[in-house]
């Protein structure tokens, strides 16, 4: 198992981890986010060895240490692909809200019969589709990068920390915390709805910073108090339906069905869990 060339980072030698990118049901945006920060892209690429990135390259390899998987699972062939990726990868990272919670596509689950929906849209050739699930409803996931999309710096930090074997901390506090620290005017005071009080931080209050209420793309913060948010929203004249539309948007606040039993994984994985 060759591990690629050796680089150093702040003087410390680094083993270039072999990383691969995959997409299931998604918009392609999370992968694009990897290519999207031109200023640091070349530095980032020197930190890792990319062995599979279908959106960007033709060369493919099944040898990789870290698999970044974008998108949710909505068809049986994706279940099989995801299981195969899990078997090959030492570390499986759920990239973005589709992978973490089902994302926007999870809204489909409010229709009880996906087959009926497929027939309605595709008529005589209904396409195979199933209930939308997040990755960890099918296989164990080592790490989640929340967001639709996530800030690129977050991904770079994740890769660096994996390469250095450092622990990765997921923020536990709500967006409000970051929003207030940034000195923004609260959107509720401007007559806008915002999910900042219940949404997990880490994006530096990206939307409120642009005077646009948070839609909860990073899912619930630890100890998110939905009742208190409902009270605040009501007090500011927003209907329960408006709030429900937002909470449903990215799948993070939607209750899950019971996960499938996790499959056994092959040897390469050393029991860290």
């Amino acid at each position: 198992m060759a591990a690629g060339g050796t680089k150093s980072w702040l003087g410390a030698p680094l083993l270039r981890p072999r990383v691969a990118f995959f997409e299931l049901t998604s918009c392609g945006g999370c992968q694009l986010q990897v290519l999207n920060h031109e200023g640091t892209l070349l530095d980032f690429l020197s930190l890792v060895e990319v062995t599979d990135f279908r959106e960007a390259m033709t060369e493919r390899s099944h040898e990789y240490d870290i698999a970044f998987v974008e998108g949710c699972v909505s068809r049986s062939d994706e279940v099989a692909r995801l299981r195969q990726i899990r078997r090959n990868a030492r570390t499986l990272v759920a990239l973005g809200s589709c992978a973490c919670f089902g994302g926007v596509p999870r809204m489909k689950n409010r229709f009880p019969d996906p087959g009926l929906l497929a027939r309605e849209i595709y008529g005589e050739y209904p396409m195979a589709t199933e209930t939308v699930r997040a990755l960890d409803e099918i296989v164990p996931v080592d790490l989640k990068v929340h967001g639709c999309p996530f800030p690129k710096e977050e991904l770079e930090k994740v890769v660096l920390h994996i390469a250095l074997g450092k622990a990765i901390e997921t923020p536990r506090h709500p967006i409000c915390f970051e929003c207030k620290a940034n000195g923004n005017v609260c959107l509720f005071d401007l007559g806008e709805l915002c999910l900042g009080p219940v949404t997990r931080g880490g994006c530096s209050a990206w939307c409120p910073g642009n005077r646009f209420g948070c839609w909860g793309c990073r899912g619930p913060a630890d100890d998110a108090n939905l009742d208190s948010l409902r009270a605040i929203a009501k007090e500011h004249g927003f209907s329960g339906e408006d709030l429900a539309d937002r909470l449903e948007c990215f799948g993070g606040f939607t209750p899950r069905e019971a996960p499938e039993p996790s499959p056994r994984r092959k040897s390469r994985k050393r029991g860290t869990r």
Partner: protein
Amino acid sequence: MKVAGTIEVHHLTRVEGHGNIRIRVKDGRLREARWEVVETPRFFEALLRGKRYDVAPWITGRICGICSIGHTLASIRAVENAFGFDPPEQTRNLRLLLKHAETLQSHVLHLYFLAAPDFLGVGSVFPLIETHPDAVRRAARLKLLANDLCDLVGGRRMHPTRTVVGGFTLLPKKRELAGFRERLIAALPDLSATVDLFRSFPVPDFSRETEFVSLLGDGGYPFIGGRLVSSDGVIRPESGYLEMTNERVVAHSTAKWCRLSRESFAVGPLARVNNNFSFLLPEAKVLAESLGLSPVRHNPFLAHAARLAECLHVTLESVALIDGLLSTDFGEPRRTVTPREGKGVAAVEVPRGILYHAYEFDRDGRIVMADCVIPTGQNHGNIQADLESLAREMAAEGKQDAEIERLAQMLVRAYDPCISCSVH
């Protein structure tokens, strides 16, 4: 080396989403050539049902990460059309500027990261970091400029945060806009170097007569709204998009296919330049002609030339838009829009071609019906027809499988298909 056989490209690379190419040749004759779309559908039109109007632009952006700005703007326009709201000039200009920035970033991404590796005989842009460092750095600079401009106007380069029904939540600072004026002008040498690079690549010799569909220019090269036109002479109002697309479901594809006067038609940069050449800025016209693109041309590989001409056009027009914005005092960023019962349609030219969003609302501004027709969806039928014709010609010429496979892949990539988008 096989001369007669089967070519299977499973999950074509360097395109967005999942598609397969399948070609069978026997004794120099084409038996089968197929472009299959196997992406998983997400049912956006159904997801939107019952949701309030402001959910639409925010959610439909998630149809596609690459052209999220185009989707957002099309969605906003459809909502505003339904509610009878006409945005003021300042909003229109800022939206066009944002649109131009997305076009530039998407075309540069396509030209350097997706298309150029084929012409340079490598599998991706990554080996070019070693062999063509200047070109890769140039691509990164141009993309960075375009993305930074998206950030400034739209709040974010992907899934923008400032673009809302009624206008913008926040306006860019004039000082920052002025900075971009300088950066855009400073990028012109990088654009000419890009043109030089592509000029050095041979354009594959292949043509098939095609119907081209786009917005119809009205005083300028069209991007947001207006009448619809086809090179076969069909003209329809924006609201008549259904007569322009005629979507149908086909067995081997999870995307719907379209037709107009013929079995298939093409949308995208080549269609736009073919239909609206006279509205390109003079510099872009000269550039297009120097690359062999004097309309109407039917070689799908000339799409790269069309992208280059559009890169120059949008860069120069962005400078002019910024000049206009800087010379007036900014008004309010956003106006109040009152929901009402009704229907609205929007047609917007996004990097890959004409995009339609249509919604029907109830009295409270909740969505009763939503429909999105995606450029790549409109192109699938034409990709199929081109693929058949190309494979047939090459098989008759006794070309090797590897060569057919290479050109077939390049052909599909020339359309810059955005497959997840087309399935949505």
